[in-house]
């Protein structure tokens, strides 16, 4: 690992110059000749029968080119994880974001005016907005064919014998925690342009984070439209933020496709910020009942978790987040006996999706808050109980995760040291410290049958390469990390690496940007392809030098003998020599990397990831007892990343994730009242600004993961996973009140302080 020239260096993101210059092209910026503008009419009520839709007035408006309603979609065409969502609704609406009709017009303004001319008659129905109500017997059923509001998903994990462990535990702590809806708030709103060619092949300009899977979805849609054997090409514009929001295909995309098909023109749909708030899918809210036990020495004996998730009206990947929640529930710290059940419940609220962490933040909030409660019962320092139970390399967890590299202990110690834990804890009234750890997948996650990514590299006559990767860049910097790996292996400057990552017509398959998998999986794919090119170069050079390829190396685009320093030749010269000759060749290589991880079996057991990422966050807070306001005085974020391929971008993930976590912990909440969003804009839904940035210190722990490219593991999501419980634990240390319901607002803190003082008086 020594003498690395490109890997491990703080290299600016490759597309940063374009973005800083303001010339990067986002979906908002792309225009095609003859392009029309699409707009969607949403439901007026969260639950209603649709009696009549009259589009006749809108059709007469000059500039309107098409209006579509449910009957224009193929009958029985449904989208979503459980295929329960028709992109346009015909008889019934189940949420306020239900799509009823759509218009394509020659301008945005005309499209908007046309929407106002569409007349819809509804019969309003009573709605169900609380998952507990929806689970009661006799509650109205949202999806009649499903016969129950509880989704038929088998979220149940049992490891060991929890009941027996309970009997044998010296201490048990039990409580209930809840979390709120929060939303991604990508600065670039959702949008697409659908365009058919003369043969009805579809090109979709998109900002999806799953180009290959989206391509499949749209091929299926074209089949449903009766367009068999047509090609679908996804071209990604520069993506204005993802965080999980673009992990599925959505009704608006199918509507744009339908409008484009009807008008034979390109159709663009761009969400307004208002739509982005109410018509995209947030992180789901949860109610979690948890109990954990330990023996006299503080060793964990069991963990039992029951969870209820408000799924909303339709299914997307949000309904599958319990599969990732199992990860911390079964394997955060050593815990031999585990039981977990989760119910996802249909309500007339907005439907939920993946968001950075994919369920892990909700589960970790409950586990790590409750662990402090257990430590208090057992009279053990919260730092000590974490030391005692920390995960270690070589462990096989109850869910059968094979832990390879594991820097959890180092992360805990770094936090304890840098936070000055012993000095600060339990001393100063009104000030306190808390910590919380995380486990996350760090080597891909086999949620589909393939967890792979392909890379193709071609080299020109001068040693410059084009790298075609399946891995999308959503701002996190995968373009740069992939270029660094290729440059390192080939001994060329990073400027000579061009990464192409946005077109399914030329880029190989990839399962998508999710599960913090891109550096690990796409990085390994790039590494594999680069190694193959390198071998071809060295084989060719070995003939020129009359030297074994193994005695050759490349640095600064010069091939040289490691045995005889006088033998050297510029890379370009070799390339031209083997190209411009009879029977010549140009260098190309491909590699498809699919990690050796496992799908869960029927009991949800198996080695989901090829490696696991760890981290610990520690925080010192000051709580104002008069106002309930929590101020973060110091924040340490220690992460085991295997190896930092690019510390600059890595810090960016930790700072960015950390601040999203702080927003989740202390303020952000989508306020839904009877199925309607009350704060759908940046004035009323406050995301952190620069004024909310605490003194935050990232600590990078390198454990050199054997399976990772140059030893690296994933870091995309971990930065926000343990934030909320670390803060909640620090607040408890500061003022002795525990907030169990996110976000931890000053109102809740103040109420808890008052309640506690009331108890004292009695």
């Amino acid at each position, binding site marked *: 690992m020594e003498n690395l020239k490109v890997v491990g260096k703080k290299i600016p993101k490759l597309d940063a*110059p374009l973005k800083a210059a303001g010339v990067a092209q986002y979906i908002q910026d792309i225009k095609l000749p003859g392009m029309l503008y699409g707009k969607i009419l949403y439901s007026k009520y969260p639950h209603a029968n649709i009696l009549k839709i009259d589009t006749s007035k809108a059709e007469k408006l000059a500039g309107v080119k098409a209006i579509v309603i449910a009957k224009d979609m193929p009958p029985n065409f449904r989208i979503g994880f459980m295929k329960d969502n028709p992109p346009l609704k015909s008889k019934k609406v189940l949420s306020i974001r239900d799509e009823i009709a759509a218009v394509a017009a020659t301008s945005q303004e005309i499209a908007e005016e046309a929407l106002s001319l569409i007349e819809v008659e509804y019969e309003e129905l009573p709605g169900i907005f609380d998952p507990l109500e929806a689970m009661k017997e006799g509650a109205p059923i949202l999806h009649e064919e499903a016969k129950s509001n509880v989704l038929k998903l088998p979220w149940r994990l049992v490891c060991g014998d929890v009941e027996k462990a309970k009997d044998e535990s010296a201490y048990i702590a039990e409580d209930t925690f809840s979390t709120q809806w929060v939303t*991604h708030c990508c*600065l670039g709103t959702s949008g697409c342009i659908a365009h058919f060619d003369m043969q009805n092949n579809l090109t979709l300009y998109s900002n999806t984070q799953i180009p290959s899977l989206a391509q499949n979805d749209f091929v299926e849609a074209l089949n449903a439209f009766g367009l068999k054997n047509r090609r679908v090409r996804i071209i990604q514009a520069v993506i204005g933020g993802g965080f999980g929001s673009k992990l599925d295909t959505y009704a608006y995309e199918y509507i744009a496709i339908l409008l484009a098909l009807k008008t034979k023109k390109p159709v663009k749909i761009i969400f307004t910020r208002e739509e982005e708030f109410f018509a995209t899918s947030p992180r789901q809210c949860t109610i979690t009942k948890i109990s954990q036990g330990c023996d006299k020495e503080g060793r964990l004996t069991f963990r039992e978790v029951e969870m209820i998730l408000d799924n909303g009206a339709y299914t997307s990947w949000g309904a599958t987040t319990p599969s990732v929640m199992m990860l911390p529930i079964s394997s955060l710290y050593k815990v031999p006996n585990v039981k977990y059940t989760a119910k996802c419940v249909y309500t007339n609220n907005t439907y939920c999706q993946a968001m950075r962490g994919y369920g892990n933040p909700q589960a970790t909030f409950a586990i790590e808050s409750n662990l402090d409660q257990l430590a208090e019962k057992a009279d053990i320092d919260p730092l000590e109980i974490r030391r005692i139970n920390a995960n270690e390399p070589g462990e096989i967890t109850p869910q059968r995760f094979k832990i390879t590299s594991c820097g959890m202990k180092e992360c805990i110690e770094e936090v304890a040291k840098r936070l000055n834990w012993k000095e600060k804890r339990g001393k100063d009234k009104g000030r306190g410290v808390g910590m919380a750890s995380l486990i996350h997948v760090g080597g891909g996650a086999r949620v589909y049958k393939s967890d792979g990514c392909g890379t193709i590299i071609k080299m020109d006559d001068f040693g410059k390469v084009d790298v075609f990767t399946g891995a999308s860049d959503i701002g996190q910097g995968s373009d740069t990390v992939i270029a660094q790996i290729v440059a390192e292996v080939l001994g060329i400057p990073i400027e000579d690496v061009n990464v192409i990552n946005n077109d399914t017509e030329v880029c190989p398959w990839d399962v998508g940007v999710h599960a913090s998998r891109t550096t690990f999986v796409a990085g390994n794919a790039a590494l594999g392809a680069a190694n193959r090119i390198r071998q071809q170069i060295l084989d060719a050079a070995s003939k020129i030098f009359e030297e074994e390829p193994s005695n050759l190396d490349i640095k600064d685009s010069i091939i040289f003998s490691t045995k005889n320093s006088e033998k050297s030749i510029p890379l370009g010269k070799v390339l031209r020599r083997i190209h411009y000759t009879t029977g010549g060749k140009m260098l190309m290589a491909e590699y498809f990397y699919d990690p050796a991880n496992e799908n869960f079996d029927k009991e949800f057991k198996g080695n989901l990831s090829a490696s696991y990422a760890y981290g610990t966050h520690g925080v010192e807070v000051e709580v104002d007892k008069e106002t309930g306001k929590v101020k973060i005085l110091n924040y340490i974020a220690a992460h085991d990343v295997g190896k930092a391929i690019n510390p600059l971008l890595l810090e*960016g993930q930790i700072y960015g994730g950390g601040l*999203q976590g702080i927003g989740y912990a202390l303020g952000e909440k989508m306020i839904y009242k009877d199925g309607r969003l009350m704060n759908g804009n940046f004035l009323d839904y406050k995301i952190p600004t620069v004024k909310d*940035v605490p003194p935050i210190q990232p600590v990078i722990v390198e454990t050199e993961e054997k399976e990772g490219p140059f030893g690296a593991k994933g870091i995309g999501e971990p930065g926000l996973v343990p934030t909320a419980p670390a803060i909640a634990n620090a607040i408890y240390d500061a003022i002795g009140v525990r907030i169990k319901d996110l976000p931890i607002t000053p109102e809740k803190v103040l109420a808890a302080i008052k309640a506690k003082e009331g108890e004292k008086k009695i």
Partner: protein
Amino acid sequence: MKTIKVMLNVNNEKVTLQVKPYETLLETLRERLSLTGAKESCSLGSCGACTVLVNGTPMRSCLILTPEVEGASITTIEGLKNGEKLHPLQQAFMEKGAVQCGFCTSGMILTAKALLDRNKKPEKRDIVKTMSSNICRCTGYKKIIEAVEETSKK
């Protein structure tokens, strides 16, 4: 439809346009002049992604009607480069890792430029106060502050 004649100086170039009476400066820049560096993200003046300089003052172009700024000098992100050379702030944003998805970047850089134009050596608290007008969801702001600080030291 009735249009209004407006003269503007955009990035040191005089332009004369016929605009709609209710047309925002953001729409004029993006749709009429193809200057797409200013971004539409909230249309409420709450995020700062559409920030441009109007006579040197950072303003939300989504809230300004073009006829209101008749005769004004407008600087957009496209006007910051000196020939092929990026402005020191653009350079610092790039090098410091202050750019992730990049959607907020134009507005951030122009907001910072206006600050440094009126105060060459701002204190960190001035930078924080000024930059708090703009939202970023990716970076956690830390490196944005560093980029502005770094530029101010040059």
